[in-house]
């Protein structure tokens, strides 16, 4: 019987920052014409959030939308309803050239929070993690040490990190090592 488990099944680490497996998150890859009104409406209906500007995430009470590329969004919805949302999207986008697929189980998702969070990411991502450069609402796809990953910063100062499921253990270990309690850099 189906009793789904997330890639890291609730793992946690606490050091310079707190690293937590975020559990199951519904996610849909949506490819299409991001300027299309039909698509915008479908996205809003599915997530309650608007299509964000390039490099950003827009969040709503029950979900959100992250900008992945000029023709791709990552829709965030509750895990339980993802299949239904995919069906709704397909219906709403009938006649448009678009593709919506469930990728909820293809990802590992982590929450990284605490004062040291920016420094932890700055150790493994070639991204300016200073507060001036990376602000809440920004979304960045990049390299995390040796794998591809993406993250956004929420209004509470927590980062949400998305990676491929197969490397979730690698990313969790990487974040934990980088958050070693005695490795504070002291610049952010």
């Amino acid at each position, binding site marked *: 019987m189906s009793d789904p488990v997330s890639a890291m099944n609730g793992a946690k680490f606490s050091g310079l920052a707190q690293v937590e497996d975020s559990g199951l998150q519904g996610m849909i890859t949506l490819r299409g014409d991001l300027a299309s009104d039909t698509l915008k409406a479908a996205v809003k209906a599915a997530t309650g959030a608007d299509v964000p500007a390039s490099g950003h995430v827009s969040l709503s009470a029950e979900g959100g939308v992250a900008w992945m590329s000029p023709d791709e969004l990552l829709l965030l919805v509750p895990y339980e309803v993802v299949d239904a949302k995919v069906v709704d999207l397909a219906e709403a986008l009938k006649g448009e050239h678009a593709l919506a697929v469930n990728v909820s189980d293809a990802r590992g998702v982590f929450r990284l929070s605490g004062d040291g969070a920016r420094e932890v990411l700055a150790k493994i991502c070639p991204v300016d993690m200073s507060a001036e450069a990376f602000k809440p609402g920004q979304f*960045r796809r*990049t390299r995390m040490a040796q794998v591809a990953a993406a993250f956004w910063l929420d209004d509470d100062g927590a980062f949400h990190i998305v990676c491929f499921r197969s490397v979730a253990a690698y990313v969790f270990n990487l974040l934990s090592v980088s958050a070693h309690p005695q490795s504070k850099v002291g610049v952010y």
Partner: protein
Amino acid sequence: MLILECPYCGVKAEETELAAGGEAHLKRFGPGSSDEEFHDYLFMRENPKGVHFERWRHANGCGKWFHAARCTMTLEVFGTYSAQTTEPPKEIQDKISEKRPNWTWRDVK
């Protein structure tokens, strides 16, 4: 350690976020082409000392292929632009002409 700005997502990506893809603006030759044409299409790459047009993919990023105009002697980047073109756009060519008045590349002068 190059930095190239991805024209699709605006990220000033560093080399480790990118994958190099060789010469840009190749014309594909398929069935019906001569041995000479097919050979040149697959193997005869420009290898200039100076201005070069090349393909990159924002692999650890938005995933899009784009083009860059770059000097192979100084690594100066004249600009990046869409991969959906068959030749460098005029503003890129103008910018190069400003900096390298006598540049040539393939038939582009």
